[in-house]
């Protein structure tokens, strides 16, 4: 046997060995053949969330403008009001034209990040520079991703995927989870926790009738039906707009059970700064009511009985255990800097996933057996060799998936099934060529050589076009479709190796070891 042929065999053995290693190497997660199954096969939740990053900018601007106006006031520059024009711009009304000039100077000196522009004698606008707005948007998206990651981690999902997608979208995949609603509640909640003082000087009725004092706002406490999730009652409450304390001062939030009423509540632990602030606050406001507000909804508004030290507080309400647990998770992970909403959701239950795997396997076996029988009958010995190549091809595709850490999806299985049909194509092209060469009167060895040589460029061209299509699919596809593109590409590349290289080496080996007069083709 020639040296080249021996090298070829060595290469084949190495490839098969590597493939078996990828498939059979032990892994800590007990995945069959080290394959990552897609959400459509193992079940799970796929979410695409949109981050309203503009909202984060608007919040930032209104906070900043409030601060500027307050600072201006301490510097004896008097403004009447600020009105939002766009997320990045607010219009300021001045008490007198003279104030405007002072204000302009003050902003230029103290707040170089803000751009002031005159409107008329009594009005001017404050706006945020475009790059600064963009930076805040970008940061809001990144921060949302991190906070959601923390919340998901608390959920205890094995191997979640969280990725930023494009400018303001987040891709979240939670394998094995089959309650998308719980996931959405946990991920989608903004979770802004605020403590605000209740304004006792007006009743909610008066405020609703239009006597809302400046600096106050009306918020509602909702009573929700546990079964239907319908809002039964909304109780209005007048509170000071300015929050006296916010959730970013928290270090921990845990679920506890109230022994007396056997009710779950969420216990909060403030940071040392927050704890001191809370103690001072409660001391100064004994006898008054403080509202605990989450995402604009009042949870409770207890009366402060005494100074509360130790930095502890609690949120009680009529929670179920599950709600309390979710609330504790989102408070611990922190508030999202902007609102997020679900743009796309795909959930597959585990039983449907298992059904899909079974159906995929069955059609693969049936299709594969039909092809194998056909090849053996039609091409006899050559057909058997092609079948060997086919089986090797499937092993290589699976090994490729395992080695690349790619994900096998339902369309991916379809891609493998399709590859079974197409992988024999290369052998069909070669074998038909060999038959032609034989008809022209060539010897066995000559026909094999001629057949392989002439078929090669055809097969290459044909496969490259399939690869082009697969590549485009990979670029544009998401999830399942991407899985299809990966198996199709792997199958095409692997078939070049198995159907051409391996079969040729086998035939050459036979030719080298014995004298062959006629071919069983």
């Amino acid at each position, binding site marked *: 046997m020639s040296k080249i042929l021996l090298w070829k065999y060595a290469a084949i053995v190495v490839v098969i060995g590597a493939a078996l290693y990828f498939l059979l190497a032990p892994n800590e997660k007990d995945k069959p053949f080290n394959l990552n199954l897609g959400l459509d096969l193992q079940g799970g939740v796929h979410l695409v969330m949109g981050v309203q990053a503009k909202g984060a900018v608007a919040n930032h601007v209104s906070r900043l403008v409030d601060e500027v106006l307050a600072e201006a006031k301490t510097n004896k520059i008097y403004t009447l009001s600020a009105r939002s024009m766009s997320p990045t711009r607010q219009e300021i009304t001045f008490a007198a034209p003279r104030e405007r000039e002072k204000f302009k100077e003050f902003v230029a000196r103290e707040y170089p990040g803000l751009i002031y522009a005159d409107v008329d004698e009594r009005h001017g606008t404050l706006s945020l520079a475009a790059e600064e707005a963009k930076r805040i948007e970008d940061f809001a998206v990144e921060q949302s991703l991190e906070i959601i990651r923390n919340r998901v981690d608390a959920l205890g999902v094995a191997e979640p995927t969280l990725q930023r997608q494009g400018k303001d979208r987040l891709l979240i995949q939670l394998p094995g989870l089959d309650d998308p609603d719980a996931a959405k509640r946990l991920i*989608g909640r903004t979770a802004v926790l605020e403590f605000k003082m209740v304004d006792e000087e007006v009743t909610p009725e008066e405020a609703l009738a239009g006597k809302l004092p400046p600096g106050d706002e009306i918020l509602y406490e909702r009573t929700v039906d546990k079964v239907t999730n319908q809002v039964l009652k909304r109780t209005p409450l007048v509170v000071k707009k300015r929050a006296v304390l916010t959730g970013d001062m928290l270090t921990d939030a845990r679920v506890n059970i109230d022994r007396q009423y056997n009710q779950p509540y969420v216990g909060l632990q403030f940071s040392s700064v927050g704890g001191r602030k809370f103690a001072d606050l409660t001391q100064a406001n004994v006898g008054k009511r403080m509202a605990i507000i989450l995402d604009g909804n009042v949870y409770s508004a207890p009366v402060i009985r005494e100074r509360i030290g130790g930095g502890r507080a609690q949120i009680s309400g009529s929670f179920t255990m599950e709600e309390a647990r979710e609330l504790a998770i989102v408070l611990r992970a922190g508030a999202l800097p902007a609102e997020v909403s679900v743009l796309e959701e795909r959930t597959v239950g585990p*039983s449907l996933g298992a059904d899909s795997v079974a159906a995929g396997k069955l059609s693969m076996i049936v299709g594969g057996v039909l092809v194998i029988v056909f090849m053996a009958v039609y091409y006899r010995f050559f057909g058997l060799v092609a079948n060997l190549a086919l089986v090797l091809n499937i092993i290589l595709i699976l090994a490729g998936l395992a080695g690349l850490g790619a994900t096998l999806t339902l369309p991916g299985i*379809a891609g493998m099934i399709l590859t079974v049909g197409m992988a024999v194509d290369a052998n069909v092209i070669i074998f*038909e060529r060999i038959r032609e060469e034989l008809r022209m009167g060539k010897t066995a060895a000559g026909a094999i050589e001629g057949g392989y040589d002439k078929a090669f460029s055809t097969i290459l061209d044909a496969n490259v076009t399939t690869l082009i299509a697969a590549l485009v699919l990979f670029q544009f596809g998401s999830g399942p479709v991407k899985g299809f593109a990966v198996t*199709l590409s792997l199958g095409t590349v692997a078939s070049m190796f198995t159907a051409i290289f391996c079969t040729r080496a086998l035939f050459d080996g036979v030719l080298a070891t014995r004298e062959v007069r006629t071919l069983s083709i």
Partner: protein
Amino acid sequence: MSFTIIPVGTEIDFLGRTRLFVAISLLLIGGGMVALFLNGLNQGIDFKGGTVVQIRTQEVVPLDEVRDALRTVGLGDVVIQEYGSPRDLLIRTAAGDEEVGAKIKASLLKQFGDKQVEVERQEQVGPQVGADLREQAILAIVYALAMVVIYITVRFEFKYAVAAIIALIHDVALTVGAFAVTGLEVDLTVVAAVLTIVGYSLNDTIVVFDRIRENHRENIQLPVTDVINRSVNETLSRTVLTSGTTLVVVIALFFLGGEVIHDFAFALLVGIAVGTYSSIFIASPVVALWDRMGRKDEEADGDAVSSSRA
């Protein structure tokens, strides 16, 4: 003696019947386009936005009862259909808000109890994502076609690329037409199938083109029509065999692969059948036609030159 599907020495005059096959294709494409115009495509929620909930019931539940249960939710137009078996139902609505899926589930559980109904799959796509996905799908098909033209132009000649693209557009048009006629749902996986067909149909076409090029090189004196006819005949057994094995597996997938992948398998089935047909009856004749037209142009140019000289 070996088995053969196509007898050795078969000489079918494919090019002689070009008009017939072009007429058949045009008729079929025309029919598909009429259906497309009248019915449009049944776009899935991937492109249109909306919500799909797939449920499995313990016993067969009449569709009307499910419909009644859902009426209380007030989602507008709700379509309920059997999905593979009478116990598997697919519920779809055009509403794609966050809460729709939860509402549907809640009302079903309330009506039938959670022992009776199990939610197998829930998909919800917002209108913005739907529009994005549609744009991406169209772009993907356009990119794939463009890249293929470039590749074939580099490897062959431009006239082959033109012929291959005409064959491809033919295949895609017929597949899309088949979806318009049957009203089957077009979703992301169907687009994936169409792109696969683009690859597969080309694969087939290229095998024939390769042979045309080879035969043309070896028999430069032979008329182009004869070269093409001969090449198609010589590759006929391979074309039939490969399409055969591929169709066998796709048919297995179509019948056994399960409901989720049914439309995808249907697109592949149509596409592969049509792709095989087009590489024999459409792509090769176009090469011949282009060649003939090119030759006429040259002759016309020659005439012009000689007449100006006169």
